[in-house]
């Protein structure tokens, strides 16, 4: 299936607004590469992840090669090249969270969902990821959940129900 037109339009708009020198002092050397992360994010927002087909679509739209797009999509950790579950749970594995019980929280979440990091439950509901320090060290152990990356914490293993419910 080719890129739906509204999505293509959004990407073209991102190219236009993210080009260098927009406005005063413009040198006119607009380079669509500046919007490539935005394009990946727009696709992911619409479809949940970035498939091989969408890598090719973005490449065609921005005048880049699929290798260039894939090189970026696999480098940045918040771009998903595999299908993820409907709900995302990202547990921080930084030192401040470790010092406040992140290992026990990780074990509890993994036992509850029956999956490890980087995996999705067989029903396609939850994907569990470990992430860098999420800037919630004062709420350690912390997690970010859901598409809008809500910060949760401090989390005890007993808070699992609330954590899972919040991951929409």
């Amino acid at each position: 299936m080719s890129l739906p037109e509204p999505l293509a339009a959004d990407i073209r708009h991102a190219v236009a607004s993210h080009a260098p020198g927009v406005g005063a002092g413009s040198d006119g050397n607009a380079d669509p590469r500046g919007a490539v992360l935005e394009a990946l994010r727009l696709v992911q927002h619409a479809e949940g992840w970035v498939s091989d087909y969408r890598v090719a679509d973005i490449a065609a739209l921005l005048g880049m090669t699929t290798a260039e797009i894939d090189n970026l999509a696999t480098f940045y950790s918040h771009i998903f090249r595999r299908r993820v579950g409907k709900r995302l749970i990202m547990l921080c594995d930084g030192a401040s969270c470790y010092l406040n019980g992140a290992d026990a929280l990780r074990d509890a979440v993994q036992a509850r969902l029956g999956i490890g990091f980087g995996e999705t439950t067989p029903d396609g509901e939850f994907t569990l990821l470990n992430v860098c320090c999420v800037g919630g060290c004062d709420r350690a152990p912390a997690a970010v959940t859901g598409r809008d990356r809500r910060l949760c914490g401090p989390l005890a293993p007993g808070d699992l129900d609330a954590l899972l419910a919040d991951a929409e």
Partner: protein
Amino acid sequence: MTGLPLTRHARPDRRPHSLAEWRALGGYDAVAAARAMAPAAVVDMVAAAALNGRGGAGFPAATKWRFMPAPGTTPGDGPSYLIVNGDEMEPGAFKDRLFLEALPHQLIEGAIIAAHAMHVTEAIVLVRDAYRTGIAAMETAIAEAEAAGLLGGLHMRVHGSAGRYIVGEETALIEALEGKRAVPRKRPPFPAQSGLWGRPTTVNNVETIANAPVILAGGADAFRALSRTGEGGTKLFGISGRVHRPQLIEAPMGTTARELIDRCGGVSGSGVLRAFQPGGGASGFLGPEHLDVPLDFGHVAAAGSMFGTGTMIVLDDSACPIGVVARHMRFYARESCGWCTPCREGLPWAARILDALEAGTARATDLDVLRMTAAEGSPRGRSFCDLMGGAMQSLGSALARFGDLFDDHLAHGCTIGARH
């Protein structure tokens, strides 16, 4: 939060101010003051205020601003750029999040002042992907300021990053904005000569920029007087780990770890301090004997560590420091861009050994390898950027400070863990 000027308007729930609310608090008066001054006079004022960059390196902000070429002196036409770096991802660092979420108009004011001082016409606020609330708050505030005509000729926008700690390195950040893999660039040329799209560019940390309106509103002398040392201003300290109430505290530059830990309700866990990292995961461990060191860039460096982002991780003596270093090393190994060999190969190697020490499967020679890696990887210039050196500073200081524990782990694995 306190009544000190940097964060005094931040609401406890971090709800950002509307433009009308911000103006009622005196917002944008500092912008008017800056615009009434010649750009060079603004830079001189920031220099007199002794503002050091708050992103980790502590480089004098005004000196960085002076690197930017005067208009008409660069070949070709085109814009110059101010990039406000909000890619905060260092373990233990959670300070910039407050400015992005709760004080967006203060950041916009700072960006306008800095742009005026450097003749910059384009400002980009780069925010890490996980800070969606901050991205939304900045976008709303920029739209308000633009609609009210407050940006003048400055074009300002938010760019969301997509993960990877290395994006916070200033030249890697520029690569990311150009739609490339975030690999640091070789310097020279420095960004002020050739930065984003080959144009003059300055990258400043969020907290650095948030200080500009404070300086313009109160003057350089008042700003310097906020500090207890020669480095001007207050600092937004972030204290986490084993303290009773982890939190952000704005306090004078030069405040001691003892005071900050006390204000967090003291050391939790056993209640006995084993060590602290004064400036995030990449800073060397300091011990109880350093509790009264004035925390600023110069004094912490003299004590053998790094002030970095001023975000402190506290360890009591019931927590395993090797467990902390193991998590740091996994983090840095995972977040390395992989461009240069010491970082790409050395960090995972060190991380694997630390994991083996925790599991009790390490060999005696592994400690020699760790010591060698820390010694060879620490000096500047051995790798392309400072990611490797920072990681090795935490490892090297741990080896020096916790030698007995490393030996104990070699014999028994980790028997301490992170229990409370």
